């Protein structure tokens, strides 16, 4: 039986301007800075950041497996809103090709302070939801930590 509309929503406050946070999602050179853990990370990314454009991420988990994710940008409002499909392409077989929807909304709370709301929808199962909730939580915490660093170090890195 199809479970209706499983989704997750996470909110974080980041010490960075909304434009900069937006770039961290769409600039291939910046994605790996937060989409990574010790021993793994997004090692390759191609991004065509326009509505209808595609992206492709290759992410190595610490066990050595390289996971491929693709999707199409549906909405791009720099500094405000990003909607993209999120399709896992393998190699773990269970959810290959399952199209899910990822929305990132940014709201500037003040100078250099941005509230990020991540919504991941059309999730295929509760197990999937629990798991990606843990995944996104950890990666958004990475993002919080990244922007909590000295702005100078960030610019140089």
């Amino acid at each position, binding site marked *: 039986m199809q479970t209706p509309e499983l989704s997750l929503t996470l909110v974080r406050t980041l010490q960075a301007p909304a434009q900069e946070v937006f770039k961290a999602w769409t600039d291939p050179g910046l994605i790996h800075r937060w*989409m*990574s*853990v*010790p*021993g*793994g*990370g997004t090692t390759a990314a191609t991004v065509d950041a326009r509505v209808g454009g595609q992206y492709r991420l290759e*992410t190595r*988990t*610490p*066990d050595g*497996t390289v*996971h491929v*994710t693709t999707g199409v940008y549906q909405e791009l409002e720099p500094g405000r809103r990003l909607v993209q499909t999120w399709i*896992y392409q393998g190699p*773990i*077989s*269970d*959810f290959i090709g399952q199209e899910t929807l990822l929305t990132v909304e940014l709201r500037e709370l003040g100078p250099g302070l941005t509230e990020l709301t991540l919504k991941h929808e059309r999730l295929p*199962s509760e*197990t*999937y939801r*629990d*798991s*990606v909730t*843990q*995944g*996104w*939580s*950890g*990666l958004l*915490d*990475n993002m919080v930590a990244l922007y909590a660093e000295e702005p100078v170090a960030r610019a140089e890195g």
Partner: protein
Amino acid sequence: MVEQQSAHLDSVFHALADPTRRAMLASLAQGEHTVSELAEPFRMSLAAASKHVKTLERAGLVRRTVQGRTHVCRLDPGPLAEAHDWLRFYERFWNERLDALAALFTPSAKER
């Protein structure tokens, strides 16, 4: 009390902060050994080995009994549990972070 505990943790982590002493603990985890047996793999003098054993003793990690002229050492893991408790408090922080990518890409793997 807190200070006393903290001083004890100091001595435990100090004892662990040396490759020779860690190797000695590994040997003792297999069973009792004399000080000269502990010294053997390192080609060190008995005096030097004895100094390491004293550091382990101070931390409460090693108990020494004297049988005639030989000193027999055995492991007391109690203080390691204290150190582990201290580390465990922080475990969840790195665990959550470490698993993030695996969780994002392998939801099915967790069910198996």
